[in-house]
């Protein structure tokens, strides 16, 4: 009869509890380190090596133009819903809707337009980048690039980074316009707030514009880098590409919300 196995130090309940907490923390730490390393290398290649401008234009078309319908529909409906709900509640409390447009515009610049746009870009574009790059990894095209002296970050990530950054800002501006016009339509039709009353920029400050640009730039940096990182870390076959896509949308969404929290706090302290 064999002797019972001796309990190793790592098999105790305390060790298991520590491992259960430490394991995911180490994994998150490793992911963050890799993402920041990729960001650093992307910036290095952007400023020190030739950029494939044709690929930037192609990616810009893919990220920007092909997101227009999606952004228009979502922000349009969101603008109508937001104005309907806020006007209805304001009517219950104060009954005066003179500042409805001014407050809505401020809200769009400070928060909704860049953040909702970035979440939509994370969903539509982030998954696309992760799937495309991930497919290239599992079909060995990334290995082929490396064999041909072409760094995958310079070749694949930099064009998506530049296009993503520019298009996030452009789409955020577009989102402000669409959302505001949709809100203006509802305010006019349902609450008798005329467009001239609704279009009121008196509450808008430079601080709002700076906060808007800061957020749009931060999201524009985060989404392409995190998505490309998810794609480049894909492994296995189509299952690996699926996992990379899911990872991209989850990580991008978390990053957008976390950056929003940080930048809103910063803006509240220093800008508003």
């Amino acid at each position, binding site marked *: 009869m064999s002797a019972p196995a001796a309990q190793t130090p790592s098999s105790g309940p305390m060790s298991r509890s520590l491992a259960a907490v430490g394991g995911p923390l180490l994994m998150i730490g490793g992911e963050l380190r890799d993402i920041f390393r990729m960001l650093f290398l992307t910036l290095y290649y952007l400023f020190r090596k030739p950029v494939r401008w044709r690929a930037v234009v192609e990616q810009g078309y893919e990220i920007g133009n092909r997101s227009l319908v999606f952004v228009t529909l979502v922000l349009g409906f969101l603008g109508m819903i937001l104005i309907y709900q806020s006007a209805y509640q304001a009517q219950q409390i104060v009954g005066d809707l003179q500042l409805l447009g001014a407050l809505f515009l401020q809200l769009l610049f400070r928060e909704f337009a860049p953040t909702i746009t970035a979440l939509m870009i994370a969903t539509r574009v982030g998954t696309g980048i992760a799937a495309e790059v991930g497919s290239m990894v599992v*079909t*060995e*095209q990334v*290995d*082929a690039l*490396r*064999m*041909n*002296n*072409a*760094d995958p970050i310079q070749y694949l990530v930099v064009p998506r980074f530049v296009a993503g950054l520019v298009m996030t800002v452009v789409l955020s501006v577009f989102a402000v316009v669409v959302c505001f016009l949709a809100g203006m339509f509802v305010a006019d039709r349902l609450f008798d707030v005329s467009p001239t009353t609704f279009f009121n920029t008196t509450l808008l400050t430079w601080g709002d514009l700076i906060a808007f640009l800061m957020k749009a730039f931060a999201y524009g940096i985060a989404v392409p880098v995190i998505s490309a990182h998810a794609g480049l870390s894909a*492994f296995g076959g189509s299952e690996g590409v699926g996992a990379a896509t899911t990872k991209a949308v989850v990580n991008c969404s978390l990053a957008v919300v976390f950056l929003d929290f940080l930048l809103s706090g910063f803006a509240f302290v220093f800008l508003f």
Partner: protein
Amino acid sequence: MIEFLKVRKSFGEKHVLRGVDLTVKAGEIMFIIGSSGAGKSVLVKHLVGLLRPDGGNIILDGKDITYLSERDFYDVRKRCAMVFQNSTLFDSMTLLDNVALPIRKHFSVSLEEARRRAVEKLALVGMEGQADRYPADFGDGMRKKVAIARALTLDPQFVIFDEPTTGIDPISAAIVDNLIRDLSVNLGVTSIVVSHDLRSIFGVADRIAMLYQGLFILDGPPQLYRETDHPIVRQFIDGQPDGPMEV
């Protein structure tokens, strides 16, 4: 000469290579065989730095290349080309530009010069007449031939072929086999071929090594494989579904 010394590689809990030793002599056509997932492709990717080992050493012509940086591996990749399993041609480029890409990336030559040299390599595989067409216009066999032409653009000393005849018709496979043989005989190129195509293995190989559970279990000329009584090798060569081999 290429030497793998006690090379180990794991992916998580899966130990793919458990201390592999292998020597490939200059000008030799070395076939690495084994069942799917045995780690054949993993092993050869270490030679060009596409994967890094957890332990052991890789020696190329007397120089330890195990821990070179990515940048330093560019020089190794000029001497040692690789033909991938999926051909990995870039769909947005013509065949000519696919083949010219390594020249343009590794050397500062004009586009015209790179294309001129690319046409010469396409002619080696009989594809020079199709140079301006795109990879999507062709089947696997043709794409594989173009991938071989691309691998040859830098006149490498060593070429790794990862399952070069898998998924292509028998005639294209025979053409690929002849190319591998010609490279060795006419140009003295050392080839490492990952394959489980028995016709290729016994038609082209100078030497065969079989990888099983992370180690080589038999290494020798094709004749040895025809005559061996090793039960696992026998099962693999005879294609028997039942036997001692754990798949």
